[in-house]
């Protein structure tokens, strides 16, 4: 099987390239191969859509989360810092 045929039928390789393309770079040849694969493979197109969705969700989710420490713990922390400062 030649190289082109291999990628056209290989979802393992195609999904690998989908991941690599999103956060790194793939070669021009790989881009073309992936394009050809995706043109004919609806399942990998779904994978790609959902992979992008996951990355976007992770990024947004953690940017917006704001958590709070309990007041007691903060008091302890403050005391600890004050002690360290007087000992210095």
């Amino acid at each position, binding site marked *: 099987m030649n190289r082109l045929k291999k990628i056209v039928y290989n*979802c393992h390789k195609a999904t690998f390239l989908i991941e690599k393309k999103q956060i790194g770079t793939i070669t021009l040849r790989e881009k073309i191969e992936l394009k050809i694969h995706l043109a004919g493979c609806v399942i*990998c197109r779904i994978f790609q859509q*959902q992979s992008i969705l996951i990355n976007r969700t992770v990024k947004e989710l953690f940017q917006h989360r704001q958590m709070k*420490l309990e007041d007691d713990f903060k008091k302890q922390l403050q005391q600890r*810092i004050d002690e360290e400062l007087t000992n210095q």
Partner: protein
Amino acid sequence: MQLENNKEIPAVNNLVEPQQWVHKYADYLYTFAFNRTNDEELSRDLVQETFLAALQGMNKFEGRSTESTWLTAILKNKIIDVYRRKSSGLINRKDAEFEQHNFFDQEDGHWNDAYRPQLFGIEHEDPVLNKEFIHFLQMCMQKLPSLWLSVFTMKHMDDESTKTICSELNVTPANFWVIIHRTKVNLRACLQKNWM
């Protein structure tokens, strides 16, 4: 500094205000740590360790970055230490329990029928508004082997360069891409299993 040898002057750098740290940064650092460890107790410890390390090192702080950036950098290093500890040495229970699936046919690389991606039906929505989806996503992330989760988190939350991640976590570039791919395939499959 002119007053360096003057013993009367307390060794407090005037670029930092340690008395204000808890008030100004504790919640922020706690959130930062929790996002990357998903462990409340560990995150509290990390915040405390960060402040103590900063107190030790504050005379060396030259004000080239803001106080907040400096504290965050200290915390970041501590989190990477946690990642390293978790992903090296003895395999922990979670990693031992992690099940490897054959998502693809080993001969031709086709999707195996049981693992074929199906539409979730929310591909075009704003995912952050979907609480259920987020719940499953977090749950599925926690099932990942420690090293994979560390790589995934550093890449997607901190936008670290591939080079940095490889050197900090001691993985080869080739292995890095294998991890990135396996993580996503597993994460997606876990979401599908719980979502559908």
